[in-house]
């Protein structure tokens, strides 16, 4: 658990995650990555615990830059846990720890003691299962993260609000009511507002935890469309229970079961010709 005091201590030597390139360290087996897309997130032999119970077993996975990576698997398989490891949201839960292995973003182990979790979360944004616009105006929702960073120039804020809302394909729908409450929007719009809020702080990675599970098919299609547009600018990791969604929007798919990574491959391979019978059973709906 990160308390305010530990944050203060680690604030100053915040390592800059951005300029460092993915380290192809010696002595490490070469990443079995597709030629396109560099490795952005390197999850290396990670064991993760909630207190005494192990939630993740020896996860090895490399997320490619500017690609959409989908995590699929039955409930409780650890996919959300892994997702929340990537921006250390699990720190908020008592008794959680990465017992073994490392998660590296651009070669930097994000669990290192001198990593400022605040800085990390600015770089690794998150969109949640239940859309959670703050009970503030749309404008304030978007500028929330920027104001935290001390941006107060009105013109600059206006510019970013428009850019983010356009980026989230929401501008045309809300441009006339920027100062109305974000809660007055429909479910799908709320979720896109949350995405706009996340991209306003210009992260490198956007984590999406079942972003469409509460949306109707039309709103879902819009969010998927958006995901497809966003991947030119951001690396996206999406957890989903919707197999079609994983198939439609992702480039790579990882199948988890019981805290283990069963199969990780190109999405088309996972859905057309999975290498593992468990994967096949799951994606074809004959599981258990």
């Amino acid at each position: 658990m990160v308390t305010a005091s530990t944050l203060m201590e680690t604030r100053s030597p915040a390592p800059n995650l951005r300029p460092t390139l993915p380290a192809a360290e010696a002595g490490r087996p070469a990443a079995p990555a597709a030629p396109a897309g560099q490795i952005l997130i390197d999850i290396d032999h990670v064991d993760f615990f909630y207190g005494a119970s192990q939630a993740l077993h020896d996860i090895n996975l490399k997320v490619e830059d500017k690609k959409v990576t989908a995590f699929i698997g039955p409930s409780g398989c650890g996919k959300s846990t892994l997702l929340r490891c990537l921006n250390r949201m699990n720190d908020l839960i008592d008794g959680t720890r990465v017992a073994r292995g490392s998660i590296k973003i651009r070669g930097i182990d994000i669990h290192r003691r001198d990593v400022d979790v605040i800085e990390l979360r600015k770089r690794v944004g998150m969109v949640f299962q239940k859309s959670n616009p703050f009970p503030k105006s749309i404008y304030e929702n978007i500028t929330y993260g920027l104001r935290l960073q001390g941006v107060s120039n009105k013109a600059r804020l206006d510019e970013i609000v428009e850019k983010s809302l356009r980026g989230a394909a929401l501008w045309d729908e809300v441009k006339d009511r920027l100062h109305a409450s974000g809660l007055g929007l429909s479910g799908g719009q709320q979720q896109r507002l949350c995405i706009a809020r996340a991209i306003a702080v210009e992260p490198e990675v956007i984590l999406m935890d079942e972003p469409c599970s509460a949306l109707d098919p039309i709103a879902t299609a819009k969010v998927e469309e958006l995901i497809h547009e966003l991947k030119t600018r951001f690396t996206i990791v999406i957890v989903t229970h919707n197999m079609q969604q994983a198939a439609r929007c992702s480039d790579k798919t990882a199948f988890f079961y019981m805290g283990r990574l069963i199969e990780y491959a190109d999405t088309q391979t996972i859905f057309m010709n999975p290498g593992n019978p468990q994967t096949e059973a799951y994606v074809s709906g004959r599981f258990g």
Partner: protein
Amino acid sequence: MTTEPVPEFPAPMKRFFDAELESFRSNLILMGETAASQVRSAIKALVESNTSLADQVIAADDEIDQLEIKIDEEAMRYMNLRAPVASELRLVIVGMKASHDLERVGDEATSIAKRAVRLSAELPLKPYVDIPRMANIALEMLRDALDCFLNGDTEKALAVCRRDAEVDSINKQLYRELTSFMIEKPGTISRAIELMFISKSLERIADHATNIAEEMIYLAKGRDVRHTDEVKKNGGVG
């Protein structure tokens, strides 16, 4: 009380994978055009005893085969990842079947071209009249079937199905004619057999065109017309 205004249905949303469907459609059209031009060239090579043209046809078959593979790949990818339903699903399935038919059309064209090469070494048995006529009908059928794919004109496609009998009757007529040739002059047997096979190829091409037309009707209407009275009506001869 004023009447409730009818809610306006929103315009169809654009999706990021619409382009995949477009590419699939244009590949199928391309394949149809290629197959038709192969048939045309093969017949031309036969009539003009043009071996180099025939060789070109034989060489170009690979193009059609590659297109078939590509269309199949695109179709499987689309079905796998995009979960198509309704007209999209029909399009993908029909596309796969039609591409198979077109590939066979290409094969028949190659076969005609090969026979044209062999026949070019000998004198023609008789002036080529019936075979180009048959070829024209078959090509028209193919064109009409593809037109139906382009603009959904199912009437044309139905007409294609009905015209198949016409080709069949010419084929039968040629068969009888060539048989009598062979009986009369055994020296013509090899040429007559080649011509019988060419005629048979054209008949097969017409059959494929009919298949494609039936598939296009299914694509447009969602109704399977194969082996129904609808396509047999006005069937005429045969």
